[in-house]
């Protein structure tokens, strides 16, 4: 079975006059051939799957992997606006998502989940995309609050991205302005269900270009 890599969709960088950042972008952009190691693993798993009786091994292994993935989701510490306060409350001891294995981690390179908590301005969107790109696969995104879902009360303004799904692919949308910690926790539990059904590669098609 052929696992296709993500299609690179990299428009011209907005850092027109900063040469170092341009070089950084060029070096770190998504490789068109995809992640080779996970492609090999997927091919190996596929081969075992088609051996007689091999599917038992593969499916149970996948279940174990998914159990591990869904019970140790590390969200990157990344707050944008007032929703971040509720997100901090969710991480803190009263609601304590750490009992679900979610440790807020201060590095995107070790994280699995990005909780977009707050208003994404057009100026902030490139940084958000960069943090998302720095996270290793498989990765998930929770859009938290009205602003991240659709632009919210600022939708008709000039400077707000009308929904963070125009920048990064989103798995769970949590409504509210801001959502209570209970709502966010519910969203995270639904995300865990989704991760438990995860298969092979977490790659999703890039978000549709803005109309």
């Amino acid at each position, binding site marked *: 079975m052929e696992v296709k890599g993500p299609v690179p969709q990299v*428009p*011209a960088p907005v850092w027109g006059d900063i040469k170092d950042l341009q070089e950084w972008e060029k070096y770190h952009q998504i490789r068109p051939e995809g992640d080779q190691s996970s492609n090999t693993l997927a091919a190996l798993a596929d081969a075992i799957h088609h051996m007689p009786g091999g599917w038992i091994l593969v499916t149970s292994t996948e279940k174990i992997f998914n159990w591990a993935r869904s019970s140790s989701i590390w969200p990157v510490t990344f707050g944008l606006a007032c929703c971040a306060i509720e997100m901090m409350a969710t991480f803190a001891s009263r609601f304590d998502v750490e009992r679900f294995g979610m440790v807020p981690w201060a590095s995107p390179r070790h994280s699995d989940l990005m909780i977009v908590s707050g208003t994404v301005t057009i100026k902030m969107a*490139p940084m958000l995309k960069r943090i998302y790109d720095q996270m290793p696969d498989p990765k998930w995104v929770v859009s938290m609050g009205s602003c991240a879902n659709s632009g919210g009360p600022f939708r*008709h*303004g*000039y400077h707000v991205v009308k929904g963070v799904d125009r920048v990064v692919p989103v798995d769970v949308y949590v409504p509210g302005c801001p959502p209570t910690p209970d709502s966010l926790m519910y969203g995270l539990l639904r995300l865990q269900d989704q991760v438990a059904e995860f298969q092979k590669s977490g790659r999703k098609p890039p978000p549709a270009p803005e109309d």
Partner: protein
Amino acid sequence: MNPTDAVSLLREKFGVEPVVEGAIVNVTLPPDRWREAAAAAKSELGCRYFNWLSAVDWKTDGLDVLCRVENLDRGLVVFLRTRLPLADLRCASLVPIYRGADWMERECFDMFGVVFDGHPDLRRILLPNDWEGHPLRKDYAIDTPHAPYR
């Protein structure tokens, strides 16, 4: 220096008729006397506190630049106002007089496109450098295209 003294001083110096509302002295000036009036407010009226500077878009009638300076010791507020024609949105910068006007004028340039002559570093302050247009102008369309996200 109370509002009445301030009014008489501004009247004889600039030939304008200030309007007093409580402790606030409203002065409407022609654009070419803008910096001169601010200098007088600072040196002669003792308004050493620069509160804010902004603009109002009156569509075809031009654009008002407003500035509020205060004398905190006496509780005197001088509210300067000048009308720029749409064809020529240039205004004298107040940075040589009030250093606090620096970022305010940059913001005014960013949002309204008013060019402040004599400003040491007039570039955008809030929006990205590649932004097109000035969003607080009434003729700015909300769906003006912006640069791609990366």
